[in-house]
């Protein structure tokens, strides 16, 4: 009795302004507010509002049989509060249906797991509070930023009280096994790992409108038949960026019509159902071990950390950023803390990637800057400004003694 498990990622970073050397010491506002607002409005109009409307309709139409999951970053929620409360309201409405589950993640969509467990936990707890506040749910399933995953993370998350965690289903870790079942970690047999079926997920998220794709055009009927072909599956995990609907795949491609017809086509087969991530975790047993010694992710073709850590600009930026943690926290200054935390968003380091080939094109599409070098310079200047202030505080408190 297979389940189709949709999970949509909702995230918007605070993009940095073109912070120049001359701003250091006198400009403590690092975000490009005008740009962020502009982009949020654009994505809200093209994606969030119409997609949420569609999901709500589908939930009602199929009498709660259509069930989905979201993970929304804390800073995306902040920007909804600030610029688009109507989007927030539509998510709240979705939550009220009882058919929508919200996952846990780091509030700032950060790479903190790799640098500071303390900060990682702080951000998860902050995020949980926000999810509880708006959607009245306590997350039981976790996804790390960009599905960054390894065995230790699985163990760590389980010990925090989560029942399941999401990961990319990487071929060289699956060794020919199917992603359509629940796995666990070698070092912690309690945690349930839901692996993304990347082929089917990317058919929708990436290939949908590609006219050179042999399967173009992808109809709901065709896709449902592929799902039905996987009749031995426990769960078919379709994990993707929510912006697939209207932003990466424009309305004109027919993506909304596709999604509108999909639940009906899937449910034609009585064995199939839609489940949220938590429901999948509850329903199906662990069938095998997924051994991720090395850290993986769902980013780029390498599916590893190279999207954020493949050059010296990225590694220096991240290590210098987290080196400030102690001083930032001991300053006790909330505003400094928040500024420091906002600099942790993974997108900032994604923009610094200098990889070429097709992944470079993907990086460029997301980046608001002319070059990865520019993005590094803006970041490192902003960090210098933060450092100057943090040092001022440190000096001031030192004098007290």
């Amino acid at each position: 009795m297979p389940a189709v498990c949709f999970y949509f990622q909702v995230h918007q970073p605070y993009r940095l302004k073109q912070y120049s050397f001359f701003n250091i010491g006198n400009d403590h506002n690092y975000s490009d507010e005008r740009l962020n607002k502009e982009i949020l409005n654009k994505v809200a109009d093209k994606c969030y509002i119409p997609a949420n409307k569609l999901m709500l309709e589908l939930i009602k139409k199929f009498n709660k049989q259509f069930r989905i999951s979201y993970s929304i970053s804390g800073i995306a929620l902040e920007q909804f509060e600030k610029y688009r409360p109507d989007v927030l309201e539509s998510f709240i409405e979705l939550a009220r249906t009882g058919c929508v589950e919200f996952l846990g993640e780091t509030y700032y969509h950060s790479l903190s797991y790799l640098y500071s467990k303390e900060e990682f936990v702080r951000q998860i707890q902050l995020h949980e509070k926000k999810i509880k506040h708006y959607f009245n749910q306590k997350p039981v399933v976790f996804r790390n930023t960009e599905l960054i995953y390894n065995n230790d993370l699985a163990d760590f998350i389980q010990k925090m009280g989560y029942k399941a965690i999401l990961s990319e289903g990487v071929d060289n870790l699956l060794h020919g096994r199917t992603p359509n079942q629940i796995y666990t970690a070698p070092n912690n047999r309690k945690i349930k790992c839901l692996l993304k079926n990347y082929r089917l997920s990317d058919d929708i998220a990436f290939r949908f409108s590609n006219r050179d794709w042999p399967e173009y055009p992808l109809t709901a009927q065709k896709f449902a038949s592929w799902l039905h072909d996987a009749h031995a599956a426990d769960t078919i995990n379709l994990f993707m960026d929510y912006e697939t609907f209207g932003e990466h795949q424009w309305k004109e491609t027919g993506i909304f019509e596709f999604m509108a017809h999909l639940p009906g086509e899937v449910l034609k087969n009585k064995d199939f159902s839609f489940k949220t991530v938590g429901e999948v975790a509850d329903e199906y047993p662990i069938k095998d071990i997924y051994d991720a010694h090395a850290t993986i992710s769902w980013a780029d073709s390498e599916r590893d950390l190279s999207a954020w850590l493949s050059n010296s600009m990225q590694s220096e930026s991240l290590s210098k950023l987290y080196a400030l943690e102690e001083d930032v926290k001991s300053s006790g200054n909330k505003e400094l803390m928040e500024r420091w935390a906002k600099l942790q968003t993974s997108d900032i380091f994604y923009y610094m990637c200098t990889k070429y080939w097709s992944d470079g094109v993907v990086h460029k599409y997301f980046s608001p800057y002319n070059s990865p070098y520019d993005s590094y310079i803006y970041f490192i200047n902003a960090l210098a400004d933060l450092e100057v202030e943090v040092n001022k505080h440190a000096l001031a408190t030192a004098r007290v003694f």
Partner: protein
Amino acid sequence: MRKPRVLMLGWEFPPIINGGLGVACLGLCKALSQHVELSMIIPKSDPNYVVNNVELIGLNNVDVENLKKIRTSKYYKEFAHVTTVEANIFPYETAESDFDIIKGKSIDFRLDGNMNIFKVGDLYGDDVINKVIEYAKFCARIAMTREFDIIHCHDWMTFLAGIEIKALSGKPLVLHVHSLDYDRGGPDSRGWVYDIERWGMHYADAIIPVSRYTGSIAKNHYDVDERKIFPVHNGADPVHVFHDTKDFPEKLVLFLGRVTGQKGPEYFLDIASKVIEHAPNSRFVMAGTGDKLRGLIESGAYRQIGNKFHFTGFLNKEKVHKLLSIADVYVMPSVSEPFGLSALEAAQFGIPCVISKQSGVSEVLYGALKADFWDVDKMAGHIISLLQNDSLRESVVKDAFRDLENLTWEKAAEKVADVYKRIL
């Protein structure tokens, strides 16, 4: 005795500025116009940009039809048989690019009135060879319509024109050497530009390099007879000096210039690493852009000094002065610098300078700390001393101000006028 009439050929001239060439030409023109009757031909002039007592002729503004009637010389025909041109011809690349070997088509010396070549595009684009040749053609024809006593050319882009005009008119040719292929491409660099420089310098009656350093390169590297080499150092234009406070507590060490090999930017990075290690309360700024920029950004990150080593990209004059108003030390680690006007500007702002011995300006700036460009330890040591030792700072700055009193365009113009006297 009436003033000599000088036909000057320039390439870069304000308001178009790329490096020091335009600035130097302007400074010299203004001062020289007191001594001679000066006309200057440049590829692009801005009709709103006027220099007193200097007739500026921009090829983008010239009437073509009249020029077409002028006869060509035998030299054209010889040169027209050149069918391939191989050259590293991009001396002032500002973007990352590879050096290409260019195979030119046979160069047709019919004057087809392609003045548009000077109206559009920049001075150093892909078609700089074409521009240089067209410039030579047009200058020659313009020269034939005028009376003059001396031809004075600035840098290789105009040498071909100068040679042409000397051949046609028989007037003496003076080549003002602000830079050489040796500086830009290194000692092993050869090609079209090197050939032009060499041919020009041999054909000329006098060479005016901007330093003894450059003069010695002309002699040793281009086999030019030293008896016709007359170094004249550049002057410093008066500038509005002001001082500002920094918004951060650290000391500021400044590098200003094109981020390209001859300016030694990698050495600046090495030096910065060393200084930051011993004097962590310092920040470094590299202002400028160039082909080495991206590599240096990554290098700086690799050395973990990115948060103290800042890149600003290309800065306009206003921003440059803002930097000069807050800098504590100026560093010029050039591998080969014919002069180095930016060091003088820093000195004018009262900033102590640490400069490479392989530079022209080190011959005239006694109020400065010097080291060989490769001597990272010594350069770093000088910077640290200046940052930590106030009395050293003060005396270096004081000495520099005294040097500046003699480094004027008036003095330079006088020397140039002397050179004219020798060859007339």
